[in-house]
C-alpha cells in the first residue's frame, strides 16, 4: 500500500503528481535544488528537502542523493515525472535494489525502448509496423540500389557512422538514385572514414500521432486512444490535440492494438506512450516508445476521463487496471497549448525572470497545469515551460474556440511568453480545418509571425496610461518630501524596498 511518495521532479509536473497524491490521501515528499527553494512544489509538498546545487546533475539527476533522501524520508515509492530520471534504467534499477517502488517500468523495458535499434527489432518481431528500411548497414553500391528498389521511393540515405546531416541524401525520383548513393557514400567516407549506409523510407509530410497505453503487473493492457502532436517547432511539440483530425475509427482500432502489442512485447508496466510517424493516407510506423508520463497527457485525461497519475500509482501498487478496453470511450475534444517563457519575436529566445502579474483563464472546460505564481523568479537552469493550457470542448470547433478565448484571458507579465504566438496558431485556417502536419509551423511561419494590431486607439491608450502613471509618481514624490509621515508609511516603504531589491 503506497502511503508516501517522493516526487523526483520540479515545475508543473511535480505539482500535477502531488495533486493526484493529495486526492488519494498519499503524503508527498518534494526535493529541491538551490534554485528552487521558492518553487511551488516545495510549498505544496507535505515535506520538502534540499538535494543539491542548481545544475540538474547535482540535484534532480543525482541518483544517489535522491535514493538516500527517499530512504531517509521512509517513502514507499518514487515518481520521476517526465524528463530528468524518468527514463533512466539505472535509476529504476537502483530503486528496485533499495526496495522502493519506481513509478514506471522496470529497467529492462526502459533499456529496450531506449535503444533505437533494439526497439525497432523488438517491434518488428511483435508485428508492429516500423519504417521500412535496412536493419544492418550496407557497403556495396549495387546492394544499396537494390534495397532502395525493394523499399520503394522516396527514401532517405543515411551514413551509418553519421550525424549532423553529413552523408544524408533524400531520393525522390528514379534518376536521383545512383548519383545520390554515390555522393552520400563519398561524403560519408570523407567525414567518417566509413562509407556504409542505411536506407529508410522517407515519409513526406509526416504526422506525429501517439497512443497512450496502460499495463498493470498482471499483464492487463489497454490503450487510451491517440494524441495528434504534429504542431512542432524545432522538433518540439507546441500544440497537441485529441482526437486527431485525420483519424478514422478503423485505423484508430488498428493503431491502438499495435500500441498495446508494442507495450506487451517489453512486458511494460505503468503508463507509456507509443509514437507513430504517419503519412497523409494513415500509413503508420513505430517511431519510439516513451516509457513515462508525457507532457501532453492531460488531453487524454479530459477526453477519456481517467486520471493517469492515479492509474500509475495503482499499477505500481500491484492493483489491476481500473478499466477494460471496452469501457474506455472518447468524449468531446481536447487541445493543449504549451506556454513557454520565451520571446516569439526574437526567434523564441528563452525569457527567464520574475513573474509580475498572472491572470489565469477560468470557466468551463479550461484546465491550467502550471507552477509559477506572482513574484516567482523563473530560474535560468531548467526548462522554459511555464504551464500547459488545456481545454475541452464537445466538438473540435468548440475546443478551438475555447482555446482562443482562454489564450485571450491568459496574461503573464514580467517575462515574455508564447501566448500571442499560440493565439495565431488557433486562428490559422489550416489548423482550424485540421489540415496540417509536422511542417505546419515552418509552412505558415510568416503568417504566424505577423503582429496583431489592436487598432489606432490602443497606442493612444498606452500613452494615456503612461502619462497618468508618471504624474502620480511625481505627485507622490512631492508629497512625501513635504510631510513627515515616516512612521505611517514605513511599512509600505519596507515592502517597496523588498520588491525593489528583488527587481519585480
Amino acid at each position: 500500500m503506497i502511503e508516501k511518495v517522493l516526487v523526483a521532479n520540479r515545475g508543473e509536473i511535480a505539482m500535477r503528481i502531488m495533486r493526484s497524491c493529495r486526492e488519494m490521501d498519499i503524503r508527498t515528499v518534494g526535493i529541491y535544488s538551490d534554485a528552487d527553494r521558492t518553487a511551488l512544489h516545495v510549498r505544496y509538498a507535505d515535506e520538502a528537502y534540499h538535494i543539491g546545487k542548481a545544475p540538474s546533475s547535482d540535484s534532480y539527476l543525482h541518483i544517489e542523493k535522491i535514493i538516500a533522501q527517499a530512504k531517509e524520508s521512509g517513502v514507499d515509492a518514487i515518481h520521476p515525472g517526465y524528463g530528468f530520471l524518468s527514463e533512466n534504467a539505472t535509476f529504476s534499477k537502483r530503486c528496485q535494489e533499495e526496495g522502493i517502488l519506481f513509478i514506471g517500468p522496470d529497467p529492462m523495458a526502459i533499456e529496450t525502448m531506449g535503444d533505437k535499434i533494439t526497439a525497432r527489432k523488438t517491434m518488428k518481431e511483435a508485428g508492429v509496423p516500423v519504417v521500412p528500411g535496412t536493419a544492418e548497414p550496407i557497403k556495396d553500391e549495387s546492394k544499396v540500389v537494390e534495397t532502395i528498389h525493394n523499399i520503394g521511393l522516396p527514401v532517405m540515405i543515411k551514413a551509418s557512422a553519421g550525424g549532423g546531416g553529413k552523408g544524408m541524401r533524400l531520393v525522390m525520383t528514379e534518376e536521383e538514385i545512383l548519383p545520390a548513393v554515390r555522393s552520400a557514400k563519398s561524403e560519408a567516407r570523407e567525414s567518417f572514414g566509413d562509407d556504409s549506409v542505411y536506407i529508410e523510407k522517407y515519409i513526406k509530410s509526416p504526422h506525429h500521432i501517439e497512443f497512450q497505453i496502460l499495463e498493470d503487473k498482471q499483464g492487463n493492457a489497454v490503450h487510451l486512444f491517440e494524441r495528434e502532436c504534429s504542431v512542432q517547432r524545432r522538433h518540439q511539440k507546441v500544440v497537441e490535440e485529441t482526437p486527431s483530425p485525420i483519424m478514422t475509427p478503423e485505423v484508430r482500432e488498428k493503431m491502438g492494438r499495435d500500441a498495446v502489442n508494442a507495450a506487451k512485447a517489453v512486458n511494460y508496466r505503468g503508463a507509456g506512450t507509443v509514437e507513430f510517424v504517419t503519412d497523409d493516407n494513415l500509413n503508420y510506423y513505430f517511431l519510439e516508445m516513451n516509457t513515462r508520463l508525457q507532457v501532453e497527457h492531460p488531453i487524454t485525461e479530459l477526453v477519456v476521463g481517467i486520471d493517469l497519475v492515479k492509474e500509475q500509482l495503482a499499477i505500481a501498487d500491484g492493483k489491476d487496471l481500473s478499466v477494460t478496453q471496452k469501457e474506455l470511450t472518447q468524449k468531446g475534444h481536447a487541445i493543449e497549448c504549451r506556454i513557454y517563457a520565451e520571446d516569439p519575436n526574437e526567434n523564441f529566445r528563452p525569457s527567464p525572470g520574475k513573474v509580475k502579474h498572472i491572470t489565469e483563464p477560468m470557466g468551463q472546460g479550461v484546465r491550467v497545469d502550471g507552477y509559477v505564481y506572482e513574484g516567482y523568479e523563473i530560474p535560468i537552469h531548467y526548462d522554459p515551460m511555464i504551464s500547459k493550457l488545456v481545454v475541452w470542448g464537445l466538438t473540435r470547433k468548440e475546443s478551438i474556440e475555447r482555446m482562443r478565448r482562454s489564450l485571450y484571458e491568459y496574461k503573464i507579465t514580467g517575462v515574455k511568453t508564447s501566448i500571442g504566438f499560440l493565439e495565431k496558431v488557433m486562428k490559422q485556417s489550416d489548423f482550424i480545418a485540421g489540415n496540417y502536419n509536422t511542417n505546419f509551423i515552418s509552412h505558415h511561419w510568416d503568417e504566424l509571425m505577423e503582429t496583431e494590431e489592436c487598432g489606432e486607439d490602443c497606442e493612444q491608450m498606452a500613452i494615456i496610461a503612461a502619462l497618468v502613471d508618471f504624474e502620480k509618481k511625481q505627485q507622490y514624490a512631492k508629497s512625501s518630501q513635504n510631510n513627515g509621515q515616516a512612521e505611517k508609511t514605513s511599512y509600505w516603504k519596507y515592502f517597496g524596498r523588498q520588491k525593489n531589491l528583488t527587481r519585480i
Partner: protein
Amino acid sequence: MALEIQIGDRLANVEKVSEEGSRMLINIDGKEFDVDLVMVEEGVYSILYNGKSFNVELVNTDDPKSYTVNTLYNSYEVDIIDAERKYQMSRRGGDVDEETYISSPMPGKVVKIPVSVGDEVKAGDPVIIVSAMKMESEHKVKKDRVVKDILVNEGDVIEGNQTLVVVE
C-alpha cells in the same frame, strides 16, 4: 503640464487637460480623449474610451521615466521626455556606439568566453556564449574588433542587458 512621450518611433505631445475623479480629458497631438481611467491592480489600468474597455499594463524598468506598456496584442516601449530628460539627452551629445558593449538580452549563465583581452576578432566571431533554459546563444561582433575588456567569467550567472565584453 505638457509632456513629450516617446512611443516606439513616435514622439507625442501629451497634456492632461482636466480631471474629475476617474474621468480625464487628455490631449494627444491636438486631439482630445475623454477617458475614464482607474488603476485596478498595481500597474494595471482599466480605461473606458467611447464605451470601449481597454486594459493597459505598465511594466516598470529601472528608469522611472521608461515603461514597457502592454495592451491587448501590442507591447510598446514608452519614454517620458520631460525637461530633465531633454537636458540629459542634449548633454549626452552624439550616439554612443552601442556595438562596442556586448551584452545578452537574456539572463543566464556564461558558458564560454572564447576570447581574451587584446585578441583581434573578425566580424561574425563569437566573443561570448550564454546559456539559459537549455538553450545557448552566441554573441558575435558585427565588425572587426579588438577585445578591450571582459567583465565576467565562465560560469557566472548574469542578468539580461548587462555588459559582458567591451570591444573597440
